[in-house]
């Protein structure tokens, strides 16, 4: 009798066990290789944090409050990493883009700073949901269909008076876009670093270079706003050219 009980018990246990066995996926597929491009903003030799104070050559104190840009169509020959990366320092940190592929395919890289005219005026709701060009992701980097996307956005507050009184009452707003300001980027000889789970291409964005690009300087006291409107062409172009110069491999 006891034996019978044991048999019943064991078989019951076995039935219970087997009947509920979850289907387990064999874990033998290898993950596709991930590639990340990151951008570390700096101010000369210092790491740049939003809302922190940095000193310009002119002696102004500047706090950057927003840094954003589009890098579209990053590619090498026929290899394309992703349709577009959106850098948004406040919301997304240093990550510019993440794609799949082998880093060996991107020993050098071309990309667009901004959004090419062939897609700049498309329906922003029609891009793939994961695309940074979809209006759900572009958010305030899209003006409207006709002007298209904002390519580069720099916002800051400046104290232009050299005294002990920190009064950041001078606002800087650069919202640059429009097809004529579109720029191309070339990174030859790029060094991907192995991060274990992915390979990473670190870039840096030097906002000191942005303000002091050789002879092309931006004096924030006098050159503090452009929405790429009529009459702002010169400053708009300078912002793009200087931004391009400020963005280099780390």
């Amino acid at each position, binding site marked *: 009798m006891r034996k*019978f009980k044991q048999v019943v018990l064991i078989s*019951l246990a076995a039935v219970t066990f087997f009947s509920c066995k979850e289907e387990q996926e064999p874990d033998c597929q290898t993950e596709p290789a991930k590639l990340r491009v990151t951008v570390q903003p700096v101010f000369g030799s210092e790491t740049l944090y939003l809302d922190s104070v940095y000193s310009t050559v002119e002696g102004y104190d500047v706090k950057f409050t927003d840094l954003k840009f589009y890098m579209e169509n990053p590619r090498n020959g026929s290899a394309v990493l992703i349709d577009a990366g959106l850098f948004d320092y406040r919301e997304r940190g240093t990550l510019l883009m993440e794609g799949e592929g082998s880093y060996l395919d991107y020993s050098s890289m071309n990309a667009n700073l901004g959004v090419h005219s062939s897609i700049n005026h498309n*329906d922003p709701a029609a891009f793939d949901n994961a695309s940074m060009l979809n*209006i*759900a992701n572009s958010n*305030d980097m*899209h003006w409207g269909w*006709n002007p298209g996307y904002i390519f580069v956005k720099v916002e800051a507050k400046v104290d232009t008076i050299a005294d002990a009184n920190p009064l950041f*009452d001078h606002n800087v*707003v650069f919202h640059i876009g429009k097809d004529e300001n579109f720029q191309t980027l070339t990174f030859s000889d790029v060094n991907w670093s192995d991060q274990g789970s992915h390979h990473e291409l670190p870039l840096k964005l030097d906002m000191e270079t942005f303000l002091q690009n050789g002879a092309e300087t931006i004096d924030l006291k006098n050159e503090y706003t452009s929405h790429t409107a009529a009459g702002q062409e010169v400053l708009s172009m300078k912002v793009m050219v200087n931004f391009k110069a400020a963005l280099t491999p780390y």
Partner: protein
Amino acid sequence: MRYLFLFVGITVIFMACKKDKTIYVQTPYELKIPSHFPDMIIPIDNPMTVEGVELGRKLFYEKKLSGDNTQACATCHAPSAGFSDPEQFSTGIDGLQGDRNSMALINLGWNTSFFWDGRSKTLEEQIIQPVINPIEMHEEWKNVVGKLSADIEYKNMFFKAFNTDEIDSLQAAKAIAQFLRTLISGESKFDVMYKFENNLSLSANDQVIYQTITPSEWAGYDLFKSLNGADCFHCHNGPLMQVQKFSNNGLDAAFTDIGRGDVTGDPNDYGKFKVPTLRNIAYTAPYMHDGRFSTIDEVIEHYSSGIQQSSTIDPLIEYAFQGGVQLDAFEKDLLKQFLMTLSDENFVNNPDFQEP
């Protein structure tokens, strides 16, 4: 004895495999997304179902969610007021008032944070809060679950929506979130203007509306977008008429409510609040996080001449140095006429959104 033993064993098998029991197959809910909107991203763990939405709608109007069974979500989020509250501060069941104005519940499925200070990252998470908030519905979820479980109709509805015999707060929140995601507004006159200016095809009904758009409304729209006009579109833009961010739009020189700063602890965020949508703005008075303005005219006056400087003011309040954008009476009127085009009667009167 032997039979008892067997019985216990069989019960064990039965219980262990409970999830293989008869299950109710839900009907997927098709969201009616306007052609000029992006897709709505639905959380994987809360797919939209007809049964879930129906339950959520009933719960949204359910007074049993409050401590004394007098208040529902809809008490402070009334459809006729664009799902907000015409009172400056809503009064909770204990007669207590908060210091923030109720928010309009419009196109929330595309929002990335909730509450004026953005303290909730998901709708599901947000919904848990008003019930337990002592100045709002002031009830424990345990009691809500008790009350709902005692109601056979709810038992059935939860079963149909989530295949469950045990009602719980997470499912209630999921159902309400599903209902809130259906509250889509995209059929205002503004929508026709948006489609027209971007060469999107207009439906027959859009064509009819298009004929009614006045030159003043178009001029008001231009002013709204113009950099040296009203300069509104930096923050209220796109099909949602809002960008997803926190901003200080110059209401105060010194803050009584630090808003976003409360959540991040960062002084650079003091005085910043979620940028609200301007859709259905004609229905959602009073305005701003503290409901300080009771009319659109007061709001326009604020942006025109009432801007207060402070350390965290948004640089995109570009004419702060001169107190605002300085519109004349004619321009103020045009701007107001444009803001009225954001009214979507089909939204506030949609029978699917009313009390079941």
